[in-house]
């Protein structure tokens, strides 16, 4: 048996069904059932696998042939700086967003399960986390720009935010904007985990004489830790691969890796430089893949306790 059972729906299988059909199916399978999935695999090959291969192959070739030149070009100071900025920005906003988002998620989880408040907050967070892009950049321009209303407000209560240029700097304005979509993403990703905490565990702790502190320190925290770290990794990749918001805010230079990659596509670069773009793209995929791999491991660990 090529273990198909786990993937079938669990309901409604009669014994007869169970015993006879797998064999019949196996006999029928080569005779054309595979044809049914050809469109799907053809499509994903053309629009997903080939592009990925183009990036991977392009990173190691130039007009002449196989080369390590593109990968070596990654050590240029400008590229290294962009990579470093991207990593720092993603790491800081992932950590900050994870902490704030986790507190928010816990607060929401203490409310009534299907209440309007919960739905409102999750929907709002869904929008801000995933569909913002250019609009989020505009929101911050309108609020914190030179004549923005928060700038004016802050000035009125005596806080001078300067000429408004801080908004365009990767380690100030961009951090704030990124946090603005990281916190909501954390809520969406982490809420299922905190909702999985069972009241019985707290009661059990209390029965055994443990205080609230002991409950959090010895019970909840160890259970939530894998989910928390996993969610943080997800936030990291989210910030690391974001392009739209940064592109709409930063109009000069390319302080971040995605912007640098975008630049190699749009600007008239010296011939042969476009494969440096592919090398940068490959570096990005490698970082994201490593982080997502870690995430998958942690997620499996997290699901041990928190499955409903």
């Amino acid at each position, binding site marked *: 048996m090529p273990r198909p059972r786990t993937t079938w729906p669990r309901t409604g299988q009669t014994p007869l069904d169970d015993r006879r059909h797998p064999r019949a199916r196996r006999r029928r399978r080569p005779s054309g059932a595979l044809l049914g999935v050809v469109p799907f695999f053809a499509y994903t090959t053309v629009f997903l696998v080939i592009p990925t291969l*183009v990036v991977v192959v392009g990173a190691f070739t130039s007009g002449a042939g196989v080369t390590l030149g593109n990968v070596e070009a990654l050590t240029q100071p400008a590229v290294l700086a962009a990579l470093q900025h991207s990593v720092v920005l993603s790491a800081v906003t992932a950590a900050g967003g994870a902490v704030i988002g986790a507190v928010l998620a816990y607060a929401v989880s203490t409310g009534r399960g299907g209440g309007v408040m919960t739905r409102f907050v999750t929907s709002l967070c869904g*929008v801000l986390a995933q569909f913002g892009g250019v609009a989020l950049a505009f929101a911050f321009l309108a609020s914190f720009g030179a004549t923005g209303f928060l700038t004016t407000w802050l000035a009125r209560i005596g806080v001078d935010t300067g000429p408004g240029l801080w908004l365009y700097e990767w380690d100030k304005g961009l951090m704030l904007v990124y946090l603005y979509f990281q916190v909501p993403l954390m809520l969406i990703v982490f809420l299922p985990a905190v909702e999985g905490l069972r009241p019985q565990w707290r009661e059990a702790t209390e029965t055994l004489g443990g205080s609230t502190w002991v409950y959090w320190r010895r019970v909840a925290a160890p259970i939530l830790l894998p989910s928390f770290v996993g969610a943080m990794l997800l936030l990291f990749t989210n910030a690391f691969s974001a392009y739209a918001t940064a592109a*709409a805010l930063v109009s000069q230079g390319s302080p971040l890796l995605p912007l640098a990659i975008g630049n190699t596509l749009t600007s008239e670069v010296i011939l042969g430089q476009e494969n440096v773009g592919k090398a940068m793209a490959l570096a990005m995929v490698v970082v994201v893949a490593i982080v997502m791999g870690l995430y998958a491991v942690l997620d499996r660990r997290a699901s041990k306790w928190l499955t409903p």
Partner: protein
Amino acid sequence: MSGNRAAARRRQALFRWATISICLVFFALPLLGMLEFTTRGPGGTRSPQTWATLVDFGTVSAEYPVLREGFLSSMGLAVFTVVIMLALLVPTMTWVRLRLPHLSRTVEFMCLLPLTVPAIVLVVGLTPVYAWVTYLFGESTLWLSLAYVILVLPYAYRSLDAGLRAIDVKTLAEASRSLGAGWGTVMVRIVLPNLRTAVLSASFLSVALVLGEFTIANLFSRKNLQVAMYELGKSDAKISIAVGLAALVFAFVVLFAMSFIGGARAAAAPVARTGRKESA
């Protein structure tokens, strides 16, 4: 003891409202900034002028042809993407469940793969592919939907997977087959109606995602709504910020409505549940 409980519960409620309020204020401020900016009139007064223009479709398309072009492209892209996505995923996923269960892992892997390939990287790799697409089909913006289908794959897969899990496809298919239905009839008249909710939520998510897409369109120099907004932002900030706010509000309304239909959270965060499906 019960007094303690009540006090604890009050404390918890206080904590809940305080946290949620602070966060909502943080989320609301930049959005208010948008609203404030778009309602500015001459000399520090409020004026609904921008919004009046925006609501009046005739004026907008006459004064801002870029916006009109972008809006229409995005609408077309949304429809195309949803149609291709459904045509690709629903039959494949059903078929895999019915006849090729050993392939389900592969299909899932393919569908979740775009999560590890950032859009900006996809653009780099898609450049030669799109050279062919342009060569074969022409320059229309609508062909971007072919790439958008890849972007929405993980989200759509999660919704549809949840939907398929909730019904017994195999029995349904066998029942209708034994009553003489062909595979086409099974798909269109049996599976699809039973997947209504899942199809709906997959479609809405795809629409929202397509309406918010910027990276690919911008780098391929095609004009969709976001690119139009971005370009307009350089010359007429007010109207483009108004469009941005309207897009966010629209996406929110869609998600909020969907949360009452059900399954929205699982669908909104496809990665949140990776690997937990067996026990879900």
